[in-house]
């Protein structure tokens, strides 16, 4: 698993989500039913881990893998 998905997974566990439900293919709304405050907390955990300000867009019900990809793209842009 990528660093980003590791941080997202840890954040979700601290939000009280069952470890067995946390999979790269899990969708944030239809599977995990995350609310806007939980999205903010995940963004804060990503900021702490990568010093990256990121707004997580849940509009199209992304998977955790999709979110990780967004983070990794921003990280690679930052590195350039």
């Amino acid at each position: 698993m990528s660093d980003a998905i590791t941080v997202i997974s840890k954040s979700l566990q601290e939000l009280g989500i069952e470890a067995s439900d946390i999979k790269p293919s899990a969708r944030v709304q239809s599977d995990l039913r995350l609310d806007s405050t939980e999205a903010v907390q995940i963004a804060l955990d990503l900021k702490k881990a990568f010093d990256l300000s990121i707004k997580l867009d849940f509009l199209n019900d992304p998977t955790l893998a999709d979110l990780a990809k967004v983070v990794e793209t921003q990280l690679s842009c930052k590195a350039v």
Partner: protein
Amino acid sequence: MRVCIVGSGIVNACGNNVSSVAKAFMGGHAGLSTVSGFADPHHPVKVAGVARSFSVAEAVNPRFAAKTDRFTHFALAASEAAMVQSELDLKAQDLSRAGIWFGNNSGGWDICERGFREMYLQGVEMINPWQATAWFPAAPQGFVSICHGLLGTSKSFVADRATGLVAVIHGARSLLRGENDWVLAGGTEAPITSFGATCYYETGEMAPTHPDRPQYHTIGPKAAGLVLGEGAAIVMLESPQSLARRKGRSLGDIVGVAINTDPGARHHRRLSHAIGSALQQAGLGPGEIDLVFGEGNGIATCNAAENAALAEVFCGEHKKPLYTSIKGYTGHMYGAAGATEIVAALMVARYGKVPPTLHAEAAQAHWHLPLVCEAQSMRPRNVLILARAREGVNAVLIVQFSK
């Protein structure tokens, strides 16, 4: 008036359910303990009624637990117990007729204090997203509503030490007005955090406490102020008509209530009047009250005013009711007090024993009503409960039990 109590739930320093708390109350065992873990190791609050056996993991869904504060956890647990005991299948009912009427005096502080640390150490943009919602005094009402889908007319109350009883009285009135068919009513409080305890300490009303002597003298010559406690007490209320339709059983009926305000803590005339109004509403004379669960909180001014009011109301009676204060067991739980006394009255009816007032042996000479100093057998018919806020708000409620 008549409103039926059909379920109850309780959490405090003495236990997490009615039977464990009743065992402590009837056995004269206080739940107070030495406090540790404050940010300042020299914090002057050394003793409190901490709900040590309460397990958030056992009582609260982890998704809710992560975004709510301790006072909401207590309310969720006590509400669940009250609903279970009511044997009411709420999911089969019209949930727009089920309301929530909770009291809370000072909000929640665990998540808030975490937010303060995040702000000072990491910056304002790093404050957790629950800083506002978890603290808010209406949070327990909101989260119980979300958790159980209850959509009836609901309100939250803040009225210092009268908070819990004020909430139950208004919840009962919402049934009488026909706004709801069922009401979860009561109070919750979790003030034992660095910031919460400091705020209460600054009122100047806390008793000096010593870590080696976890005691709270509520009545008598050694009473020197309050000891804080945390917990919740919630009752499920239902109209007699609704209860009759489903052939349910009432644990006890609320038959008289009153709320008013004295001009200050030293005054007692309006408190006497509130007791008189509640008696009149219940159609009872003072001589028909068997037991009083009083405010009895250790503050000399408060105790004197309460004693004077009781003397005024019961002076002409040949048979005077017994008096007890249970705050010595749990600490004063502010928003959860009053409602806790209602649940304690249900315990007396169920177990046939009155919990004694702790450390009150030397107090009888100064107290107008006969104090319960040892657990005493009783099957009461009418129990009077009273609560009093620091600036003179009075709340009185009478529970009647069937013969």
